[in-house]
């Protein structure tokens, strides 16, 4: 019998420590100074529109170069209150840094904007919160979901003097920053610290373990509050649709990542010896690399198309390979091998494109013995949170439809982040949605106030 080899303590304490330390360590003062001076302070700098939140990058870098770190942090936070976590988790190589003119010949090396941004935020010296709250407007707003979208929305509205109740289904606030980011990208409870920082503005009341549709209905929220913002995220994980998918050893990657992030002693966290991850996005990379770093011996990412189609960036793919992860492309899961209610292997079928460029299986099967299978094939929005509401926002496909101001089909309900029908599912996009929605909500409430 093929016994699953899943256990904890595969590594020494030192190895755990090293493997889950910050993968992009903070810049020293000296390094930051040198790097900041590489910025050319471009005219109409291309990096600014390349940042979804429109941070004035040349300005904050110039402030670092001229030793005005608090000013640099302010320039970042003005545009992006979660500038600290975005600096750590943004795929900068496809955002601001891709637009950097230093990518051109002869240098071919962008200014490391993300690391400078982190430097500015981490080294902010001021004790006071960088923003002040305007006098209380008496207006109340429900922000559902305390992930990046909800936090950004809540903060901007709180600055305007509104009163926010920030609901979250989980025990801790922060959304995917708390539960869904690879540990080595956001170390040392940074997600929690950042939430605390956001809360410093005042006027935000947090309600945890609150689930929309169970604890309260959307109808009730809309009645009790002047406006509602939905930053619900994506509650559901896509399934493979294979027989036996419910057996032990088959798990959603996000659950495993969340468990890993919440684990206080990694040496107590069991991990399989042989692992296959299905998927081609950053979540697939994250779980694969983290398993490797927990001591798994053979970790394979199986992706149904060529690697150029993977939504994980080339940088992320290279990181996975550097971690010893094998990326197997042009294969799709065809069936699971199970014994005694446990997964023991997976059959992968080779794929190809037919004449119409549709993906099809070739029938050629490879079997890989495994202890654990992780599914990282995307998430979906769980609309069941609206089940007990008389009126629910319209969906566009499977996500909440929003207009250009992030308003849903319901007049006093806005939405942003992964749960809506816009933009890739990046933290930095979620922040921008929350920010824009807050502007729109404020406008709406202003009208409300002015109209008496």
């Amino acid at each position: 019998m093929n016994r699953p080899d899943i256990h904890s303590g595969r590594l020494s304490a030192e190895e755990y420590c090293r493997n889950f330390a910050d993968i992009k360590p903070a810049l020293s003062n000296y390094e930051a100074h040198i790097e900041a001076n590489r910025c050319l302070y471009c005219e109409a700098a291309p990096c600014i529109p390349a940042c979804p939140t429109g941070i004035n990058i040349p300005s904050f870098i110039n402030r670092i170069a001229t030793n005005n770190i608090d000013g640099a942090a302010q320039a970042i936070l003005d545009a992006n209150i979660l500038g600290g976590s975005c600096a750590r988790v943004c795929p900068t190589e496809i955002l601001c840094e891709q637009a950097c003119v230093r990518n051109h010949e002869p240098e071919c090396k962008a200014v490391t904007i993300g690391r400078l941004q982190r430097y500015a935020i981490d080294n902010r010296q001021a004790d006071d919160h960088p923003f002040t709250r305007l006098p209380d407007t008496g207006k109340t707003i429900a922000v559902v979901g305390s992930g990046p979208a909800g936090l950004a929305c809540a903060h901007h509205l709180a600055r305007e003097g509104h009163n926010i109740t920030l609901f979250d289904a989980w025990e801790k606030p922060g959304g995917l920053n708390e539960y869904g980011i690879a540990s080595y990208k956001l170390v040392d409870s940074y997600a929690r610290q950042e939430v605390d920082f956001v809360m410093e503005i005042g006027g935000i009341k947090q309600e945890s373990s609150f689930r929309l549709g169970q604890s309260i209905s959307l109808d009730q929220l809309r009645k009790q509050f002047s406006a509602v913002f939905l930053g619900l995220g994506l509650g559901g994980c896509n399934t493979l649709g294979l027989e036996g998918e419910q057996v032990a050893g088959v798990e959603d990657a996000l659950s495993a990542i969340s468990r890993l992030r919440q684990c206080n002693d990694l040496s107590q966290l069991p991990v399989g010896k042989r692992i296959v991850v299905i998927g081609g996005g950053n979540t697939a990379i994250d779980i694969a690399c983290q398993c490797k770093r927990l001591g798994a011996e053979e970790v394979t990412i199986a992706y149904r198309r060529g690697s150029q189609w993977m939504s994980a960036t080339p940088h992320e793919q290279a990181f996975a390979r550097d971690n010893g992860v094998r990326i197997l492309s042009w294969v799709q899961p065809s069936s699971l091998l199970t014994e005694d209610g446990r997964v023991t292997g997976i059959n992968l079928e080779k794929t190809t494109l037919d004449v119409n460029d549709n993906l099809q299986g070739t029938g050629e099967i490879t079997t890989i013995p495994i202890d654990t299978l992780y599914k990282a094939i995307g998430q979906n929005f769980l609309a069941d949170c609206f089940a007990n509401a008389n009126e629910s926002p319209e969906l566009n496909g499977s996500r909440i439809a929003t207009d250009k101001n992030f308003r849903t089909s319901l007049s006093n309900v806005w939405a942003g982040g992964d749960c809506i029908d816009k933009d890739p599912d990046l933290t930095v996009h979620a922040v921008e949605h929350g920010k824009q929605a807050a502007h729109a909500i404020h406008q709406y409430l202003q009208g409300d106030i002015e109209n008496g």
Partner: protein
Amino acid sequence: MADLTSNFLGIRSPNPFWLASAPPTDKAYNVYRAFEAGWGGVVWKTLGEDPVPVNVCSRYSCHKNTRGDVIGINNIELITDRPLQVNLDEIRQTKKDWPDRALFVSLMVPCEEESWKTIVQQVEDTGCDGVELNFGCPHGMSERGMGSAVGQVPEYIEMVTRWCKQHCHLPVVVKLTPNITNIVVAAEAAQIGGADAISLINTINSITGIDLDQMTGYPTVNDKFTSGGYCGEAVKPIALSMVGQIARSPDTAELPISAIGGISCWRDAAEFIALGAGTVQVCTAAMLNGFKIVQDMIDGLSRWMDSKDYQSLDSFRGAAIPNLTDWKYLDLNYKTIASIDQNSCIQCGRCYAACEDTAHQAIAMTPSQNATERRFDVINEACVGCNLCQITCPVENCISMVRQQTGKPYLNWTQHPNNPMREN
């Protein structure tokens, strides 16, 4: 390889790189290390009368650019604080041990003939090659009527120079202060006094910065500060200008020059020699990099000379002087226009910002269709050829200034119709 041998006032040195009178030449130990490293000569740090002056702590401060590179240093150190006889003994021994190197001795004593007579004769007795009269230091000693206090009064320059020439047989070099309105006047005074050569520039009055916490300046002595003498690569343009003005002035054109001022590499040295310098004196570059820097200076200078087929320093000495003129003789019909090499442009837009905001609106910025790229083009009709775009461009040779054929003859301001004082 080109011959770098230098013959300055009949004093030969294996190369034109001398260490200037300054802390690096304060004593035999340093000078021996300098000669071992390859320096062609030294000017021994300024000797004065006993009792010796007393120095403060601290003594130097620097001026950095935003990137953190030192572009200039200032100092408030005085002349040597070692007893005169110790210096004289070391100078005598040094010249004995290093007969092929030039060894000049810098001097500064009160403006009295007896003082100068005494010291030049004491120094002559050491067997050194010459003396350099320090009429330049702008700090400390100038408050006592010496250094730049002498260099700022042409009559004093002439008088003291004459004393020295009368009382010794050594070549006399007069070191000039740049803290003066017209350097040529000072050079003329030295010449009239009988100076064999001049050296310039000494340091420039300066305050490198203010400590915004303590509200004092640098270098800070307890809580006070004072103006110091500025040197280093930032002063090179000022030194070049002063050397050039003396070299092209008919009255002083024949006066040999030992050039000083921010010489940091072989190229700087070549530039001063092209403006007529006989030798070059270096201090800051050695203080920042150590004496070994001279080897790279020698190597660079001789390779460049080889590439130009210059056999000796005399082959190009003064070659740039004929082209140095007054503004009024510049050709008003000469025309260049900026040209941007689109292949090497990295689209930073620095040229656009400079031209649009601060110059002549002669560069157009055109975003591409998808707005991820943009293109910068010179608007030829608006370009005045000011060079600013080229200066701001971070890419070497991306922007060039292209000469335009105007078909118009040479025309200068003295001939221009707009000049009410025109000569024809």
